[in-house]
């Protein structure tokens, strides 16, 4: 079953074209990651999905409804963790959640039970009566998850859910998202963290300047765009220029800050090159989604540039 089906979705804000014809289908039970640089159109697309952003052109249905005319029906079935946690700072944890229980039209008796369960689930039960302003960033984020899950949504939309969080909280949230995936929830997630996308998503959609530039499973994208292994060298090292010259033309060679990255199809070829120049790389690793991302969004510069 198709949960989201977008065809040729465009959105302009004045002369800025945030979305320039997006075709995207999200199936039930799938976890789809939207990746792209700031301003690529990720959050705009999410807004279009549940009707807080009105598309300029194209068609889209969520749960079979057009968000322009039936956003209420759609919003009954989804939960959103927005980029800003947007909690009522003056109220306590439980007051915030009870108010939200009203908005998602849960009966009061049921809502208290559900809040208790979810606070335990997100390890926030000890903060039940704490005012929001006393919570850390990580706690607020977890509470935003509690809020999104209150009405047991079928579709969960996570807009940069772990930005700015410490690794412990990030891992906790990843575990919860994996849990929810297993329970059959459909998940649409935007993120800047390639590792996050690789860990969580069945399918990744890379957006740049309002257009989808590629999509596929993490493995598939890596194999197609950046297969192999990457060695990272300190650019200031004297033998780096020789490395550059010795590397075959079809390898990817690109600078990254003060480092030089060399990607080869196999590990043995990289090791070979290394031996010939007797230079140790700072890091030698299998290629990952970050390499794909940098290549596709044009932030990777090749030898010819």
């Amino acid at each position: 079953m198709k949960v989201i089906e977008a065809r040729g979705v465009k959105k302009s804000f004045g002369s800025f074209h945030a979305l320039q014809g997006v075709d995207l289908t999200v199936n039930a039970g799938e976890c789809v990651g939207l990746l792209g640089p700031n301003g690529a159109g990720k959050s705009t697309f999410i807004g279009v999905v549940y009707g807080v952003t009105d598309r300029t052109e194209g068609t889209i249905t969520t749960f079979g409804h057009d968000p322009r005319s039936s956003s209420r029906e759609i919003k009954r079935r989804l939960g959103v963790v927005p980029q800003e946690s947007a909690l009522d700072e003056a109220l306590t944890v439980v007051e915030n959640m009870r108010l939200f229980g009203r908005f998602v039209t849960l009966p009061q008796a049921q809502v208290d039970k559900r809040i208790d369960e979810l606070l335990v689930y997100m390890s926030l039960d000890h903060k039940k009566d704490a005012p929001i302003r006393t919570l850390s960033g990580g706690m607020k984020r977890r509470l935003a998850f509690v809020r999104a899950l209150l009405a047991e949504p079928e579709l969960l939309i996570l807009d940069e859910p772990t930005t700015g969080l410490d690794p412990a909280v990030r891992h906790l949230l990843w575990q919860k998202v994996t849990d929810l995936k297993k329970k059959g929830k459909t998940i649409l997630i935007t993120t800047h963290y390639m590792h996050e996308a690789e860990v969580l998503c069945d399918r990744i959609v890379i957006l740049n300047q309002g257009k989808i530039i590629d999509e596929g499973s993490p493995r598939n994208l890596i194999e197609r765009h950046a297969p192999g292994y990457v060695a990272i060298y300190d650019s200031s090292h004297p033998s780096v220029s020789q490395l550059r010259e010795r590397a075959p033309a079809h390898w990817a060679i690109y600078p990254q800050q003060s480092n030089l990255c060399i990607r080869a199809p196999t590990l043995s070829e990289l090791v070979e090159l290394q031996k010939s120049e007797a230079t140790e790389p700072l890091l030698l690793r299998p290629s990952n989604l970050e390499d794909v991302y940098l290549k596709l969004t044009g932030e990777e510069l090749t030898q010819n540039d």
Partner: protein
Amino acid sequence: MTETLRLSWHVVVRNWTVYKKDFFANISPTLADPSLIMVSLGLGLGSLIQDINGRTYLEFMAPGLVATTALFTSFFESSYGFYVRMTYESIFKAMLTTPVGASEVVIGEYMWNFIKGSLMAFGVTLVLCAFRLVPHYWVLPVATLLGGLISIPCAALGLLASSYIHNINQFQTVYSFLIAPMYFLSGVFFPIEPMPELFRWAIQISPFAHGVRLMQLLFWGELTLQTVLWHGGMLVAFGIALSYWSNIRIRKKLIA
């Protein structure tokens, strides 16, 4: 429709839940300010003023203060209050992920302003009772209701301002050039009848002036069918027109 009203009501509950957290800080200026004006202008300055149509200055000014409370309560709630909720606290961003839509937010804000304006008018009228300035017991409920009615166009001005300004400091300009003139020129502090004809006509475009007039006639026991229809009609017409306009503007702010 019932679903819309129910969801709008939750917006009221949200505002009330936050408001009551700091109840005394929130309510004290509303009651303290009119009391202060009663003493300084009513008793102080009033002692130098001759009777106005057989009324003491205090008696003349009192009803206008009830209307003023509704004006300030609703304007500040829907300007600074609403703007902070929308821009700094992102309250609506979270709300709009639920079945609540932009219309429910706007309707809810109007309901809240109506209730708050009514309650504040009730509170000030009670204070006036202590000054023995409320002639009949039934003035209290009617003044309460009228306070709510005055709040609607005034809240609309606040919401419109919220939709047009680019930063929160610009509310000061709206206050100085729109709200303050309405407050000072709508007949709260001086009778309009002796003023030049041009002024008397110009002041009819102030919804607040109609509210003040109705409140005065109510307190003075001089309401007639004709005055109720004219001033009440104008108040309601302004309320409908301005809230309609503000609804279009705020929707555009909430739904990009």
